[in-house]
């Protein structure tokens, strides 16, 4: 599902009854708790594997997918939308005569799935004619019949709708009582039930859960005509409903009292703080443009990592396969060979599909490869990219990195970003200690406006909350801040990263890539990090 479709559901654009087909069928909430019988899934998978190999495929993989989503959308005292959706079907991918072919069907009969497998094989054979080089697939040993599940405590789909509505309406009332003029709050819950089988001998059953609580709090000064918003400081997570338990022990309080959240979120507490902070924005002084040392909270840094490290180190972008849409990459293959100095020696960046609580955490990727973690940047030097089975040989690798993903049973799986994270500093360093050494800086919390060029050099980022830092002390809340970077200079300006006790994740539910566009969910962790001498612009304008 794409961000645009999500906006349609939350009423932020469009409306009416035209449900985008990406949602699949609208179902009753109770149906969200059921699963497909694993025996049926294996039977369908075996039918596809047999049909494909019988038609001449040298490799086949099958994904029997059931994608469930629930949306509860509110504003102020109103419930705007409650929607439960299901999309179920089977996607079959084959290699025949050295070329890929793909076909999918929503018909869960053995005959339909076998027909899709034969169609995929026919397409592969047709594609082989214009293929310049045959597909080279990195080896992947079959794992037999296995299963994996997101380690959730409370299945979100089992929580009654009424409890969810009550929770959001309480959050909204609390924000309004604390001075907000408007609040939009949403619960977005995802369960991907994915069964993968391949001619390598794998039958992998996975049950993946994700949760997101987007919120926008608005404060208005009618006399000046000024309005300001503050979005949630939570992160979308690969967790169950326990994420909303509001466990105080999991809160991270900034030296100036701003409450941030790790793996437990108190939505009401954040809504109250957001109302006060949004109102404070209306009278906060405007930043003076210039060079500042930036102290970036993990709730902000995740997006900078995503755009300026995660994307440029996707091998398909580096090679040019995404040139017409997402773009290419400045981090070309020659830079890998030369161990390009991407950042300072404080910068260690890992790709990790095994982080508990992260959006990208799964046992196996969508081509049956067991997930892992690996270094992308070590002590500032570029050491690797993210690649999948048909790309590994380009890097001289013997195995895939396990970051292949499709956003639906009907989409072809391709290389998607793993969780890409900045490792915490090894030496003990708190946020307070970091700030104490900053003479002229800005402390940024939360993600805001973001934009980056098609090769991932020049980027501009905003945030949710900005505070000036003067002579080691965090001062007043300020406004109109955005910083502009050139990626390698920015990461080479990283002078300190706080220790692991400050480590948190942020993430995106809607990372778009490919044509037709597909969406994936990915997390990025870091501890608070410092970047010296960064160019800050003032974004205030007057319309006269």
């Amino acid at each position: 599902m794409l961000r645009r479709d999500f906006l349609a559901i939350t009423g932020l654009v469009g409306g009416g009854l035209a449900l985008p087909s990406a949602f699949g069928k609208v179902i009753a909430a109770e149906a969200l708790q059921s699963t497909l019988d694993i025996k049926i899934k294996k039977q369908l998978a075996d039918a596809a594997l047999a049909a494909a190999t019988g038609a001449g495929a040298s490799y086949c993989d099958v994904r029997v997918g059931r994608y469930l989503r629930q949306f509860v959308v509110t504003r102020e005292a109103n419930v705007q939308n409650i929607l439960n959706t299901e999309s179920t079907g089977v996607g079959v991918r084959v290699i025949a005569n050295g070329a890929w072919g793909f076909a999918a069907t929503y018909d869960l009969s053995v005959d339909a799935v076998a027909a899709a497998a034969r169609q995929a094989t026919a397409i592969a054979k047709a594609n082989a004619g214009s293929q310049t080089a045959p597909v080279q697939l990195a080896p992947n040993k079959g794992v037999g019949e296995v299963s994996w599940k997101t380690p959730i405590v409370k299945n979100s789909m089992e929580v009654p709708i009424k409890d969810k509505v009550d929770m959001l309406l309480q959050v909204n009332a609390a924000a309004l009582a604390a001075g907000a003029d408007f609040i939009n709050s949403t619960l977005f819950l995802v369960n991907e039930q994915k069964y993968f089988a391949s001619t390598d001998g794998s039958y992998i059953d996975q049950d993946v859960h994700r949760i997101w609580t987007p919120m926008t709090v608005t404060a208005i000064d009618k006399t000046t005509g000024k309005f300001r918003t503050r979005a949630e400081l939570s992160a979308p997570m690969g967790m169950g409903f326990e994420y909303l338990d509001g466990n105080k022990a999991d809160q991270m309080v900034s030296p100036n009292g701003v409450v941030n959240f790790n793996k437990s979120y108190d939505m009401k507490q954040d809504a109250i703080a957001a109302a006060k902070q949004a109102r404070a924005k209306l009278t906060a002084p405007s930043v003076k443009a210039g060079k500042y040392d930036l102290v970036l909270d993990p709730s902000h840094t995740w997006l900078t990592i995503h755009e300026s490290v995660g994307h440029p180190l996707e091998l398909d972008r580096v090679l040019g396969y995404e040139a017409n849409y997402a773009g290419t990459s400045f981090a070309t293959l020659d830079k890998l060979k030369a161990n390009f100095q991407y950042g300072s020696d404080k910068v260690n960046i890992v790709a990790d599909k095994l982080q508990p609580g992260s959006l990208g955490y799964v046992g196996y990727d969508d081509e049956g490869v067991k997930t892992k973690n690996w270094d992308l940047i070590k002590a500032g030097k570029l050491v690797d990219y993210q690649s999948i089975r048909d790309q590994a040989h380009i890097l001289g690798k013997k195995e895939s990195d396990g970051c292949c993903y499709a956003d639906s049973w009907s989409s072809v799986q391709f290389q998607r970003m793993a969780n890409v994270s900045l490792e915490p500093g090894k030496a003990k360093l708190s946020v307070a200690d970091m700030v104490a050494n900053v003479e002229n800086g800005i402390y940024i919390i939360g993600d805001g406006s973001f934009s980056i060029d098609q090769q991932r050099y020049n980027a501009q980022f905003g945030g949710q909350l900005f505070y000036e830092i003067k002579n080691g002390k965090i001062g007043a809340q300020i406004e109109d801040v955005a910083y502009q970077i050139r990626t390698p200079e920015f990461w080479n300006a990283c002078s300190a990263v706080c220790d692991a006790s400050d480590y948190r994740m942020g993430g995106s539910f809607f990372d778009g890539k490919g044509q037709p566009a597909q969406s994936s969910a990915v997390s990025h962790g870091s501890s608070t990090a410092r970047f010296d001498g960064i160019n800050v612009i003032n974004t205030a304008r007057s319309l006269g």
Partner: protein
Amino acid sequence: MSFPTEAEIKAILLKVVAMSKADECTAQMSGATDGNIRFALNNVSTSGIVSDTELAVQVAFGKRVGSATINEYSDAALERVVRRAEDLAKLAPENPEFVPAVGKQTYRASNTFSAATAAITPEYRAKVASDSIGPCKAEKLIAAGFLSDSNAFVAFANSRGNYGYQTSTMLDYTCTVRTEDGRGSGWVASNVQDSTSFNAANDIRTAMRKASASADARALEPGKYTVILEPAAAAGLITFMMRFFDARQADEGRSFLSKKGGGNKLGEQVFDPRVNFSSDPWNPEAPVVPWDENWLPREKTFLVEGGKIANLNYSRFWAQKQGKRAAGQPGNLLMSGGTKTTADLVRSTEKGILVTRTWYIRMVDPQTVLLTGLTRDGTFFIENGQIKYPLKNFRFNESPVIMLNNIDELGKPVRMGDDNGRGSVMMIPPMKLRDFTFTSLSDAV
């Protein structure tokens, strides 16, 4: 896959509406055959066709609303989907913003269908790819592109006697051409309803020319410059601004169209007097279905006329609350202009910058609609009416509201789609603007 006839579709819709025991019922059936081909590195990478239909049912008991969808059409399946929608409605909380279904309307059909586009074959798509790749290979350039085409229908009926049916087609093509050494990049896009007016072999020459001409780009100090934005470059900024033409947002005080002290800027001069934005479902170059997503008839309306705010978009709920008349939400955006092409505008420019395309545009400050983004795939310096040399790409921080107060000249509007070939169609002119704000340089090609 061929779709059911209009008579068959109408029969299904009326059957569904009759089955419902709710206070009101709306049934909508839609279907599309979407084809595409994707190529990169001068090779076809993927190609596919997806064909599907869907029936959506929305019912209401009082102010409780439920909806359900299905893609089977047996009597039992229809019964099932109606009952599911009814069950969901009974469980739903009351929606205080509920507005009853639209009563019987007369919709004047618009010409949104082309038989040629509907008949596109896999061979046609393969030829578009080879017409794009072939010339590039011959000139040692590298093509990456995407063609998508759609043949669709939409029909609905409700328990208040309203009914509508219309078919539509669309073709959207984009291609990025890069030099082998990666120092030059060009781009071309075409969005048409009728595929006979599309020619990839011609279009690709624009992208190839820009790719070759944009190598050896020079750096120019960021700052305020006279720019000529090609229609694609201008469209990206303008569409962001149009989101704020929602009346409720303006009345609530969270739009650049909100007024100090309350209310909205309806009737106020906000742009240069040459700025006109209208919407017209029957526009011959950019027709759209004559009803909106809530089945209200679309009308020919001005949002901006002579630079003044002529209309805001009222939802049915907000119109009722504010005592206004709700009209159909616009389906297209038509900006008026002059008769000059981009090339004509270049010829009349003493010094300026030509921008092919804008990219990764994001809102920086909704208060002023300040946007940031970058130029891409062909940025050139103009001197004495001629393109002198290619420029390195810039990041801009600019508000379309300010930009449309700094107009030197508007050219002839051109049909545009959005980035993905989805959403509304637009007619946007190339525009020469003063004091456009570039804030930094980008090394990206």
